[in-house]
């Protein structure tokens, strides 16, 4: 790869509380196609981590295989990264999270990686409520192998070669809600102002936080007839609400219209203020969220924004009551029952 990133940066880039400017959160220059939606999502991740004052070494980024799964090379170059095998990112995330509950885990996947080869892992990482942010960069096609329809391609959608997809699409967001996920959002790579508060809120959610981002493949699935093209998505998205993420300590200063606002408190004291656009929808009620998704489907619309959030979510460590100290810094003293306990076991077998 011969890409060279221009070295020049404005010397007075603003710094966050940690003293880092936004470029400290960037990664290597992307080798994805120019205009790829995935790069916008990477940029939103960079901005969110900068805004949230995250220490990069306290975050682990993980992925599977595919165009989307290449992106961890393109953001947060000062964080640990793990590019796992196809569809198996959740297993690696689960192992890492169990070893050290104190890091922030950011998983990035694609529709091929999550909805096909990794479907079993996806379902079970939802069920286990692993404390992680799981972003699917969803373009409805296999970009890395030249644009075949994926399992999230909509029935009737046309791909670049003019072929119509004959199968029902898998709706990952609805699936996550049905499976009991405590935080489910949907967004569009063209809407950075929506993505950023969602990513921030997801990072503050104590459990599995899923964001399905429709991210058009400019090279193989941006044609007329595709329901994952920029134009189509832009024309068919309908937001549940506008979202403000209000960090801990900050005062809620924006004025919201009476009656249409829901404030969701996050576990660390921060809040998400949702200004509802969708009627008959309660973001904290699973059944209501399912109804909103079904209704949008019936109207042929793509519902974006916060879809469902469970304020009482308890992550895997709480459920299985592991020690507060991360397991990977426990020592022989904490872990090994020693010869006396072993003697009891020997005795029980006599």
């Amino acid at each position, binding site marked *: 790869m011969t890409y060279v990133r221009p070295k020049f940066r404005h010397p007075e880039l603003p710094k966050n509380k940690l003293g880092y400017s936004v470029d400290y959160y960037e990664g290597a220059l992307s080798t994805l196609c120019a205009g790829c939606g995935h790069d916008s999502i990477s940029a939103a991740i960079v901005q969110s981590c900068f805004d949230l004052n995250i*220490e*990069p*070494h*306290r975050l*682990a980024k993980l992925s599977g295989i595919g165009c989307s799964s290449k992106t*961890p*090379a393109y953001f947060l170059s*000062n*964080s*640990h*990264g*793990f*590019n*796992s*095998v196809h569809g198996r990112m959740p297993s690696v995330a689960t192992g*890492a999270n169990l070893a*050290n509950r*104190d*890091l922030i885990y950011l998983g990035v996947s694609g529709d091929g990686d999550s909805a096909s080869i990794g479907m079993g892992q996806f379902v079970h990482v939802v069920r286990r409520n692993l404390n992680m942010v799981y972003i699917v960069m969803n373009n409805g096609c296999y970009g890395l192998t030249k644009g075949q329809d994926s399992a999230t391609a909509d029935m009737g959608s046309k791909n670049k070669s003019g072929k119509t997809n004959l199968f029902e699409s898998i709706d990952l967001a609805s699936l996550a809600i049905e499976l009991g996920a405590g935080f489910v959002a949907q967004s569009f790579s063209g809407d950075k102002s929506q993505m950023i508060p969602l990513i921030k809120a997801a990072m503050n959610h104590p459990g599995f936080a899923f964001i399905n981002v429709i991210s058009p493949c400019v090279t193989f699935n941006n044609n007329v007839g595709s329901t994952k093209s920029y134009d189509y998505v832009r024309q068919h998205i309908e937001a549940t609400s506008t979202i403000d993420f209000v960090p801990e300590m900050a005062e809620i200063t924006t004025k919201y219209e009476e009656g249409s606002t829901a404030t969701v408190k996050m576990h660390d004291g921060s809040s998400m203020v949702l200004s509802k656009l969708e009627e008959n929808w309660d973001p904290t009620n699973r059944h209501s969220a399912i109804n909103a998704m079904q209704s949008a489907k019936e109207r042929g619309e793509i519902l974006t924004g916060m879809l469902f959030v469970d304020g009482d979510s308890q992550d895997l460590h709480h459920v299985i009551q592991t020690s507060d100290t991360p397991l*990977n810094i426990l*020592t*022989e003293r904490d872990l*090994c029952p*020693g*010869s006396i306990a*072993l*003697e009891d*076991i*020997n005795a029980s*077998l006599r």
Partner: protein
Amino acid sequence: MIDVQRSGPSTGMPTRTQQSDVLEAAYASHGDTKHILLFPSTPRECFEMTADAFDLAEQIQTPVIMLTDLDLGMNDHLSEPFVWDDNRKYKRGKVLNAEELDKIKRFGRYLDVDGDGIPYRTIPGTHPTKGSFFTRGTSRDEYAAYTEDSGAYQKNMDRLMVKWETSKSLVPKPFSYPTNKGNACGILFFGTSTYSSEEAMDMLKEENVFVDAMRIRAFPFNQDVNAFIDSHETIFVIEQNRDAQMRSLLMIELQASPQKLIPILNYDGMPITANQIFKEIKQHLTNTK
């Protein structure tokens, strides 16, 4: 990883024993790949080797597979009591902490600093600005950066061979049976073929047939296994599978001559008997007299 081997292939015989995952486990995965294997032969050794396996996995930075079998895993055995040394420390291998990272100019995840093929690693979250790296399945250079450079790729593959050599002295040594030296025949066995092999040796002794014996406890083979094969004219390799899988490993890894390695095989799902071993050794020695 613990593999309690049963009669295969496929579902095989769900309640019967076998030692038939040896070759598969040794070279599991595509590409040029070799794995550390441990072969316990008693419940106590299962216990000890499991603890050792954790240490080895961290020291060598690789998965370790313990190959036990249904005979050990499902049958009742009389066992010596398990013992634990309370002074034992976990071996974490080459892990750099924050202070050590501070002293290093440039951390290279795959840099063979010590010449033993085992590089240093870091644990996520250790240091604010140093030691983070990107783990990937693709070829990479010594600093964990993606590369398709032939030289960098080959260097890493060669480093893995150096690591393989290093691990030969880290894994459990084979167990050598006391000998009067100078016997022309040796027998090699592992795992649950042990009791029958020992009994067969006693049976042979009664007929004034003396053989040297070695119990293999790990793969890669320690230098002692090589020496044992070299110092005998004939080696009987006793195992519980059809295809003489351990014998294949000995040929591949130690360049042992196939003519020298006489397979004694049982693969009917029942543990191999002393009688079978006794008979086959006697038969062979009679035929070649």
